């Protein structure tokens, strides 16, 4: 029996087990939206208030569930509004399938109404994309899209469907894709490299594990823990690797990089062997590369061969999925106790605790600090919390101080640093994990970039808890202005609306906390509330994130406070 291309789009998504389509209708995608009414009981569409909201929601959903996030938009402006999210998903390896409508194929290239070359525009920021001009191609293209998005190093895929292909008839047969000749998602593992790596590890006195999101993407948290525990090696994480190992694990030394911990940065230049697991030596992690870990031998476990030797030359590279390679390595490494080496981290931790952490977490100054809000959230939430952040100072405080014990419980825009990511991503995360307590930590700048998504939260009745840390500044930029631009606060002060009234207009309950005595009560009230809630906390204006590896400095030059003038 013949069906239309639009029906095929939805049936294909259903075949792939899609629960939600985050999207926004428009001219060139209307046939698919019309067909949706027929499949409402099998697939749910969520109407966001902007296409950027749709894609960030799909990202939040994908990050919390580990499944492919699906979003949909019309041609032209609808499609271009997805681009920021696509770029974000590309750099953070988030599996997404984005479906966009396109003008009818006879109109392609004629500057038709709402025509944009979205395949061209999205090419540098998609793992794969494809323009469908014939209805028969739809099942094949969607099957391929899901396979590419979710396998190997995951990433976003875009399928652009011409309007006539949405109308046209086809015989529908769906076959999931499991092989593409030119695409090898899982490389063959070189066993020699594994034994060579094990030998290096067994010989080293001061080995150091740097771990990233590869573990989370490979669902290899258990395998990683087994490796850490047998080898006894201290481990530190990149911002996206954070949930790969329990924050409280005795061998979890903390965060790497620009606003990471003191010990983890300094000892990078003191260890003798680095075991980099599913991470890519981002510049925010390495600081000045010329002075980064030159004394250490590098072992790199990585699924994407283009990442090997891209930034830091590996002495031994284990190319493969860490889910497979970690157990092989664990088997060959000797059981060790590196307690003297671990103690070096702990000594430096004491300095950081005294000079930074205690002052931030238990401040004596009048104004509320971001870190103390997070401390209270840690105290009042349970294991089932998922933290989502936006981008800026609050993101760094959240990364540093949020306690995380469960898998996929911290969602943030890492590589791209997309302001406005937080609110829609938190909404998407709540849709993906309704049983969890999703807490968004967001600044006043970032919230206003996608604040219209409060409407989506209202309509979907998603119980997202929004903690707005309001310092009336674009805090991270202001911090840099203070430190590196002689405190000239150019265009970083913000006059803000009454956020509580705004939330109220969207039917969202809220409360503003102005001083410390009301903070704990406010957090408790927010968590006790069954629906969405906005807790606005007035934050000390000149609160800065430290430690810091200033741009151009070596990781060993991490500073704990601003330089004395």
């Amino acid at each position: 029996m013949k069906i239309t291309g639009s029906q095929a789009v939805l049936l294909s998504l259903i075949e792939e087990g899609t629960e939600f389509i985050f999207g926004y209708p428009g001219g060139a995608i209307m046939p698919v939206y019309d067909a949706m009414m027929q499949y409402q009981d099998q697939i749910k569409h969520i109407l966001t208030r902007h296409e950027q909201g749709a894609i960030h929601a799909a990202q939040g959903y994908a990050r919390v569930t580990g499944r492919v996030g699906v979003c949909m938009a019309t041609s032209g402006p609808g499609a271009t509004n997805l681009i920021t999210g696509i770029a974000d998903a590309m750099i953070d390896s988030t599996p997404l399938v984005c479906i966009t409508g396109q003008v009818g194929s006879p109109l392609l290239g004629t500057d038709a109404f709402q025509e944009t070359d979205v395949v061209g525009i999205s090419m540098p920021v998609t793992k794969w994309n494809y323009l469908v001009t014939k209805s028969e191609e739809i099942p094949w293209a969607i099957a391929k899209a899901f396979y590419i998005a979710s396998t190997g190093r995951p990433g976003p895929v875009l399928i652009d469907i011409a309007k006539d292909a949405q109308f046209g008839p086809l015989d529908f047969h769906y076959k999931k894709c499991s092989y593409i000749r030119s695409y090898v998602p899982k490389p063959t593992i070189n066993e020699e490299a594994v034994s060579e790596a094990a030998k290096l590890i067994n010989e080293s006195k001061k080995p150091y594990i740097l771990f990233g999101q590869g573990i989370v993407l490979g669902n290899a948290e258990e395998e990683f823990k087994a490796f850490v525990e047998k080898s006894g090696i201290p481990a530190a994480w990149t911002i996206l690797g954070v949930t790969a190992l329990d924050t409280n694990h005795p061998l979890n030394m903390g965060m790497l990089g620009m606003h990471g911990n003191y010990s983890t940065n300094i000892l990078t230049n003191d260890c003798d062997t680095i075991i980099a697991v599913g991470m890519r030596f981002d510049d925010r992690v390495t600081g000045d590369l010329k002075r980064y870990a030159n004394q250490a031998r590098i072992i790199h476990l990585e699924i994407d061969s283009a990442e090997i030797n891209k930034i830091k030359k590996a002495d031994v590279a284990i190319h493969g999925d860490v889910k497979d390679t970690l157990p092989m390595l664990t088997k060959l490494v000797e059981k060790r106790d590196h307690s003297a080496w671990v103690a070096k981290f702990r000594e430096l931790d004491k300095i950081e605790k005294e000079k930074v952490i205690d002052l931030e977490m238990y401040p004596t100054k009048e104004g509320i600090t971001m870190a103390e809000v997070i401390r209270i959230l840690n105290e009042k939430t349970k294991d089932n919390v998922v933290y989502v952040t936006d981008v800026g100072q609050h993101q760094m405080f959240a990364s540093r101080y949020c306690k995380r014990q469960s898998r996929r419980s911290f969602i943030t825009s890492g590589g791209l640093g997309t302001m406005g990511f937080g609110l829609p991503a938190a909404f998407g995360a709540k849709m993906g994990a309704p049983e969890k307590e999703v807490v968004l930590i967001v600044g006043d700048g970032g919230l206003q970039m996608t604040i219209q998504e409060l409407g989506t939260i209202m309509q979907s009745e998603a119980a997202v808890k929004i903690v707005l840390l309001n310092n009336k500044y674009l805090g991270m930029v202001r911090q840099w202005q203070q430190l590196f631009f002689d405190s000239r606060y150019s265009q970083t002060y913000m006059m803000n609306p009454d956020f509580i009234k705004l939330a109220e207009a969207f039917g969202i309950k809220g409360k503003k906390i102005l001083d410390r005595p009301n903070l704990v009560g406010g957090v408790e009230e927010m968590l006790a509330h069954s629906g969405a809630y906005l807790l606005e906390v007035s934050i000390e204006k000149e609160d800065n994130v430290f430690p810091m590896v200033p741009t151009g400095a070596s990781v060993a030059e991490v500073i704990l406070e601003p330089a004395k003038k």
Partner: protein
Amino acid sequence: MTNTYTITAFSENHIGLLNRITIIFTRRNVNIHSLTVSESAIRGISKFTIVVIETQEKVEKVVKQIDKLVEVLKAFYHPNEEIVYQEIALYKVPTEALLASNNLESIIRKHNARILEVMPEYTVIEKTGHCEETQELFEILTEFGVRQFTRSGRVAVTRLSEELLTNYLKELDEKELQLVTQLHETSQ
């Protein structure tokens, strides 16, 4: 230290792939010296031949990025010693000026060039060779006034007995066979 490298990439013949490949160069601010696309010895598989003057390190990274593209089967790079390569050049010269010259024959002979077309107004000369050789002829012909000159991108074959891709495809076929058997087994 920069050197001339020839990158060869084998791919499925898909719309837009050329764009995906060139983006990799653009993004890293690497200049493409020449680029040629044609069908390879294996039916349905396109071969990109791209010449760049870069450091080996940079070339290696670019090749890995090309290799990573979904539709690219495999990408390689070679210094000049590893390949046999050729370019073709066409020169359009006024016939009158050529006729007035005494040494046209020796130029053609010496440079192994040939004449493709002679018209009252112009003559088209063709030469194949390495870039320096076609350039040398260009400079000699300038005295006659070259009206048009065009040089193709480099084409190249490796000095190995078999196409590197053939070995790679053999491995792939074995893998696919295994995969198909596995799928077959699980479905039973």
